[in-house]
């Protein structure tokens, strides 16, 4: 998977939230084989000493700061600038939420923030609704990849609109497309990959499973399998049977 000229051998990007312990998070990260993990930016608590969460991440992992929790382009841009200053990375997962119940993205604010951040030299990876026209606008704005959702964040519903992902893949063959949000289990990740995604970003599906390290392994394998199937090119679907054995020479 290539993002802004950087090659990643794993097609899985994972989150760092909702784990029951840092140790559990670390074992899931290791099992997943992911090379990139996403982290959120928040105010430092002033009334108590806080552990440095980043110390629990393997130093070999690429950290992808995100703007989760932002509801306006302005807040997302401010958050992005702070993240870059603290981590000295241009990579950014841009997320501008439009509604608390669905956590659906505000596409208009996302595009506005993307335009500003690209001009400032960020490598912008935007979360957005699975919409081809929006994808084109984000790419025209200079985003390094497109990250359409599969389903609402944390819902685990899996790919709700496979046709949209497939259309985006077919119409934007050169874009790096990472399915972000909504995956619930391994088959969901495999489906996203079979539809032509270059990668999948997930958090809850691993963190909220009963055995996150095992689910992380399952996701790793599903993503590899889905990618192989996509590259292999699936057989056409037919309504009726098509015999696999020769029709002649059957004993009478």
């Amino acid at each position: 998977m290539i993002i802004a000229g950087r090659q990643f051998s794993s097609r899985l990007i994972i989150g760092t939230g909702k784990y029951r312990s840092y140790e559990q998070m670390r074992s899931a990260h290791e099992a997943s084989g992911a090379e990139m993990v996403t982290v959120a930016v928040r105010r430092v608590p002033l009334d108590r000493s806080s552990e440095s969460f980043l110390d629990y991440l393997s130093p070999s992992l690429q950290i992808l700061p995100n703007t989760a929790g932002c509801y306006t382009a302005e807040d997302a841009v401010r958050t992005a600038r702070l993240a870059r200053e603290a981590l000295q990375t241009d990579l950014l997962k841009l997320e501008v939420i439009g509604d608390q119940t669905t956590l659906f993205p505000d596409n208009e604010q996302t595009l506005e923030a993307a335009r500003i951040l690209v001009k400032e030299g960020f490598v912008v990876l935007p979360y957005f609704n699975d919409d081809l026209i929006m994808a084109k606008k984000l790419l025209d704005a200079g985003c390094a990849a497109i990250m359409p959702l599969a389903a609402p964040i944390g819902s685990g519903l899996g790919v709700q609109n496979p046709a949209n992902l497939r259309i985006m893949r077919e119409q934007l063959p050169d874009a790096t497309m990472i399915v972000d949000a909504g995956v619930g289990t391994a088959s969901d990740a495999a489906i996203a990959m079979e539809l032509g995604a270059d990668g999948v970003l997930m958090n809850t599906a691993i963190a909220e499973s009963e055995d996150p390290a095992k689910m992380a392994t399952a996701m790793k394998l599903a993503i590899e399998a889905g990618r192989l199937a996509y590259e292999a090119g699936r057989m056409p679907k037919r309504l009726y049977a098509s015999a696999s054995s020769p029709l002649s020479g059957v004993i009478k």
Partner: protein
Amino acid sequence: MKVFVNGELREVKISTLAELITELDLPVARIAIELNREVVRRSDWDSTMLKDEDRIEIVHFVGGGKN
């Protein structure tokens, strides 16, 4: 002098941003600071003078995948 730190109004007896971080006893690794909505680079913390009613945001990183 009174300044807002992460939204809280605080009485402080310091004059620079670097001194504020020391007074708050914060770990300095991998945090970032905004003064009145503009990021202040780490190299400028020492020379950044604070004034009454300044608004300072100090952030770090937490676990999170989505929202």
